[in-house]
């Protein structure tokens, strides 16, 4: 992709992906979903998940699956608040840029 994905946008995408699964979801699935939207290396996501977990935006729990424990990630209330903020900010940001592209409108 031509455009860089900053830390905030990556956080927003990960929070959005995790929030879609009410019961929570696991690392591999999150990575695949995120990779279907933006190009990132498979090793990028672990630090992001870990940070979001430390910031209390995500919570983790282990659940038995096929004879082993699988770690699940679930969005917290704080995570939802943060995601709402990201969504609103992204809308503002993209609207401005689309306004500029399509109509040449610049808000001042």
């Amino acid at each position, binding site marked *: 992709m031509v455009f860089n994905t900053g*830390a905030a946008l990556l956080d927003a995408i990960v929070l959005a992906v995790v929030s879609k699964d009410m019961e929570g979801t696991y690392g591999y699935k999150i990575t695949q979903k995120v990779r279907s939207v933006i190009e990132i*290396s*498979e090793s990028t996501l672990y630090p992001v998940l870990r940070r979001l977990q430390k*910031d209390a935006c995500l919570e983790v729990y282990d659940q038995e699956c096929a004879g082993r424990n*699988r770690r699940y990630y679930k969005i917290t209330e704080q995570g939802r608040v943060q995601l709402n903020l990201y969504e609103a900010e992204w809308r503002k940001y993209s609207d401005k840029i689309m306004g500029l592209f399509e109509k040449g409108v610049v808000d001042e």
Partner: protein
Amino acid sequence: MNKEDFLKRLEDALTDVSEGEKAEALQYYRDYFEDAGPDKEEEVLASLGAPEEVARNIKEEGTFCEYTEKGFQDGTTQSANAVVVPDQMSSSQNGDQGNANTSSSSQTTKSSDSTTTAVVIIIAILTSPVWVPILFSIFGAILSCIGCFIGFAISGVVLAIAAIITLVLGITCLFSSPALGAIVIGIALILGVAAILFVLLTVVICKYFIPFLVDCVKKFWNWIFKKKKEGAVA
């Protein structure tokens, strides 16, 4: 290189990382391989790249610093304000974000509150030779007022009883010697009037003066409290 090699090399590469952090990361990548399935192992290995690179990623982004719009930031300061809310965002926010903002701002005031509270307590202790006697004298004055009221009330009751007894005595005297009886009844009536006066005084005190006093104490308390609050805010 297979999955186990990768995990072993990752473990070795995660040198200056805490045991807990290391275990978390290894668990994550073990899970990752398991979830991808054995037939995708090669693909995942190729995509993940060198374990040392993955380890560096974990160390830099996970614990020490991370890349943001403001450049590299120290991981420790980052975690202090867990949820980053840039200032310019606060101008246009919906309800949920408003909550987030107020919660973060209340946290900051809380921390400054505790320091000012400590200062207020220290000042209170240092100035205690002044305000403790004042407080005690106010308390004493209130107590003596209450004592006075009780005295009035008891006087009223006692006078009323005395008036009734005297009245009965006067009426009985009236038969043996009418003049003495009249005098005694007159005294009884005077006592009765005095009793009524005291009772009225007590009623007036209970009805108006005590609420007034309570109000004064309340106002005084609020005044002190407000001052403390203002001091804490400043």
